[in-house]
């Protein structure tokens, strides 16, 4: 085909490529601020920092490599019929571009390892523990009145449970500024306990005792839902997390009437 | 095709068919590897082994335990059959087809008696594939192995028929060797099975 025509086609497709790439790059930069919510727990804040760190490295790698690609397409397009120099490779460069990524990933790994150690902490026995039960297709949250956490004396005994139905979505109450432990259990299939603003999820696995602890720092209501496909109405396993002051929490608790443990069972 | 391999000037003792067959065996090993993994994981994270039974199962008179004697004899039989088939291979390498036929018949007989023993053993067991992970893993592992034994026996029968039909000679007896490989593989898997299921406590 005529070279001039080649060039026109080449330009058209290259402009497309460049535009699309620029778009992606800029959007990803935007993602750095708006992409991931900051999170509402101490743990979430640590993980969010890691996210930013990873994102920056990723963007640098991306822009460098993608830039190099686009540059080649403009700089080295065919100009004449002369055969370019037939370079078969170079050990030095191979070594260089093997080592640099190694360094990068070791850095990434080290940081994420530290964060992992910091966020996966265990509950002190005095901490408030909420028993979370996932079932097809909703949640049950069980509190033990004699075990309501540090700042209060047990004023009563017995458990009470909030059972959700897809029709009326349950609300999970926790006090702010205190470590709270969630003990997850399921009798049917795997679910996943996911509160977006925790930046964390943990699977609810039959026959497995999964627990995690967070300390919420923000008061408010937050959307949450099951994150593991668990059957037809997986999409409806939503619930609301409500973070309140200790005072409001105690007041709310005192309004709850103790229920027989029986109701903790999954309703058939 | 092989002709072309020759054109390509590869000095090779293994024929293409044999190489392909060995690769196939490798995948078989991985298959049993997966099943064994399941067994060991289940056993590792079960507090007691054999696991506890549900009241219902207790009531039904389920008992999770295995007889040692018969399977041990069966094991010996299978190992022996590995030896006999090897004699068959040696025979055909000498070009002694009638000896090959004899050894094949013996090996087939041994293989069949192994299967019969296993069937009888099954019939005596006091638990089924539904009775806890113990029953499931037991029947799955031994069952898949049994199926491979059956396959091996059929393989040997084919070889038997062909050799009776006057095939195989000192120079051409690859199928016989392939067959013996397969049989040894089945044998080795069983030894591993026997060790894990009956011996390792």
């Amino acid at each position, binding site marked *: 085909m005529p070279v001039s025509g080649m060039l026109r086609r080449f330009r058209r*497709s290259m402009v*497309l*490529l460049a535009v699309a790439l620029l778009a992606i790059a800029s*959007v990803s930069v935007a*993602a750095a601020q708006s*992409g991931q*919510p900051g999170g509402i727990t101490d743990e979430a804040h640590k*993980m969010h920092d890691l*996210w930013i760190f*990873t994102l920056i490295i*990723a963007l640098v*790698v991306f822009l460098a*490599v993608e830039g190099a*690609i686009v540059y*080649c*397409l403009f700089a*080295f397009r*065919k100009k004449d019929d002369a055969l*370019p120099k*037939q370079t*078969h*490779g*170079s050990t030095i460069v*191979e070594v260089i*571009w093997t080592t640099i*990524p190694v360094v990068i*990933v070791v850095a*990434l790994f080290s940081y*994420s390892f530290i*964060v992992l150690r910091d966020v996966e902490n265990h509950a002190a026995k005095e901490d408030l523990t909420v028993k979370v039960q996932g079932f097809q297709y909703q949640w049950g949250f069980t509190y033990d009145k004699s075990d309501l956490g540090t700042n209060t004396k047990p004023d009563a005994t017995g458990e009470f449970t909030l059972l959700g139905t897809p029709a009326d979505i349950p609300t999970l109450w926790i006090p702010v500024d205190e470590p709270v432990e969630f003990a997850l259990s399921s009798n*049917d299939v795997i679910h996943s306990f996911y509160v*977006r603003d925790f930046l964390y999820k*943990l*699977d609810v696995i*039959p026959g497995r005792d*999964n627990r995690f602890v967070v300390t919420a720092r923000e008061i408010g209501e937050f959307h949450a*839902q*099951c*994150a*593991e496909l668990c059957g*037809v109405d997986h999409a409806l396993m939503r619930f609301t997390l409500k973070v309140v002051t200790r005072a409001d929490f105690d007041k709310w608790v005192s309004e709850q009437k103790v229920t027989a443990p029986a109701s903790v069972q999954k309703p058939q | 095709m092989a*002709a*072309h391999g020759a*054109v*390509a*000037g590869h000095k090779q003792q293994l024929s*293409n068919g044999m190489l*392909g067959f060995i*690769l196939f065996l*490798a*995948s*078989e090993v991985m298959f049993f590897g*997966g099943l064994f993994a399941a067994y060991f994981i*289940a056993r590792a994270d079960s507090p007691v082994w054999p696991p506890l039974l549900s009241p219902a199962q207790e009531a039904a008179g389920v008992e999770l335990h295995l007889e040692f004697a018969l399977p041990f004899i069966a094991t010996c039989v299978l190992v022996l059959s590995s030896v006999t088939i090897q004699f068959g291979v040696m025979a055909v390498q000498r070009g002694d087809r009638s000896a090959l036929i004899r050894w094949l018949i013996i090996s087939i007989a041994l293989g069949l008696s192994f299967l019969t023993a296993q069937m009888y053993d099954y019939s005596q067991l006091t638990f*089924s594939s*539904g009775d*806890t992970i*113990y029953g*499931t893993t037991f029947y*799955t592992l031994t069952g898949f192995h049994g199926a491979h034994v059956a396959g091996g026996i059929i393989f040997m029968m084919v070889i038997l028929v062909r050799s009776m039909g006057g095939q195989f000679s000192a120079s051409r007896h690859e199928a016989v060797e392939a067959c013996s490989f397969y049989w040894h593989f089945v044998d080795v898997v069983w030894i591993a099975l026997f060790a894990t299921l009956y011996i390792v406590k």
Partner: protein
Amino acid sequence: MSSVAIPRPKSYERPVILDWLTTVDHKKLGILYLYTTMFFFAVGGVLALLVRTQLAVADNTFVNNDQYNQIFTMHASAMLFLFIIPVWAGFGNYIVPLQIGAMDMAFPRINALSFWLVPPAGLLMFSGFLFGGSADAGWTAYSPLARGTGTGMDLWIVAVLLLGISSTIGASNFLVTMFRMRAPGMTMFRMPIFCWTILVTAVLQLLATPVLAAALAMLFIDRNFGGAFFDPNGGGNVVLWQNIFWFYSHPAVYIMILPGMGIISEVLPVFSRKPLFGYKAFVFATMAIGGLGFSVWAHHMFTTGAVLKPWFGFMTFMIGVPTGVKIFNWLGTLWRGSITFEVPMLMALGFLSMFLIGGINGTFSAAEPDDFALHDTYFVVAHIHYVLFGGSVFAVFAGLYYWFPKIWGRRLNERLGQLQFALMFIGFNLTFFPMHLLGLDGMPRRIATYSNDLGWQALNTVATVGAFLIAVSMIPFIVAVVAAFMKPKDQPNDPWEANTLEWWTTSPPPVHNFDDVPEIHSERPLFDLRHGKNAGH
């Protein structure tokens, strides 16, 4: 120019249909593979369009929750098991024997068997829709969920087993072919890179697929013979399924990409008029990816809390290194080249730029604390498609445009090709880039509906528009193919001035592939012939 004669088989005549049904010719089987898999690409794509239609707006009721689960499960099953994995077997079948100067595959009949397992398996998998619903537990079929669901699940299990057998025996066939049938002078390290990637893929299939078979057998036993493998009440272990499934399925994702990388490594050098930069480094990187692939499976299971996170996180990070080596080698190939932009090259560049994104966003999930947030959200869906569409599918089209002249003796129209590329490239990014943001904003995957007040609708609508744009981009492709078939075969042996042996013979090649093969002094025999064997150095 000296050459070596090759023995011919006696060719004989048969009615056309019967001929195609009974053929053991690797080229015909390759073509059958390509038709079948592209058909399932269309099917999987149409299912994807249903998914996108349902998700286009919040609280949508286009399909109900039950149907939705079936649709996306079959979308993925079709795309992975019936399209992307066997499509490589298709290219491999047609191209590998030609590239190594062989007459056929080592075991032509077994080759036919591997193919003929695919269509029935496909029908079996989809027949679920006739028996009260197809499989609906996701392509990952997690237990206990997958222990419970309907007959469609059993059909799915059997179908995937058949496909597993198909690719396992296919794999040993490829290996023997490449070990034993290479033409004189073609040492292992003179094999085209595409062959190398097929070789490593074959090893992965041979070792990983049987493990999947074992897992499927267990699931089948659990479902039909009261087994307790994945039943905690029977002492079973729920996470066991995930361990075994991913032990197969992570290597499987490299099964889904490596041959694509091979195709890219054929196309880039040809249209940059340079040899692949760092041939050996590339081969070793491919092997490294294959090896590491077996040590990272639990990165799919970080949120189970049941795996050794640091180990699997680290190994997962490490896989970025050999993959990086490949990316850089491709860059090195473009560098100081003399680049032209025929459609195969455009598609290859699409792969290069988009797989890069898919790789990097996969690396996010290797950092466990990041993955706690990202896991099972649309961020992962974005990753899946940047690697599998931005990677594999672009490679498929690169291969189709590149080898079309060889396989069908005709060339696909350039302009239509450019149009397809442009539409597909834009549509692809429109569809899948927003999914990153949705995932970060907490939208879980595999949900049939989402409520309006979560603010996910806008980006979902964009994604849906993009999806239909991708569908439209297939129209110029289909037109180009039809148009090509209406023209007579007019292609010379080597329309691209390429490097490898398949371009030595006629387009399309005769039944016996070669009348003779040239002497081979390097991995670029045809280049050597054009420029003399010393020009290359």
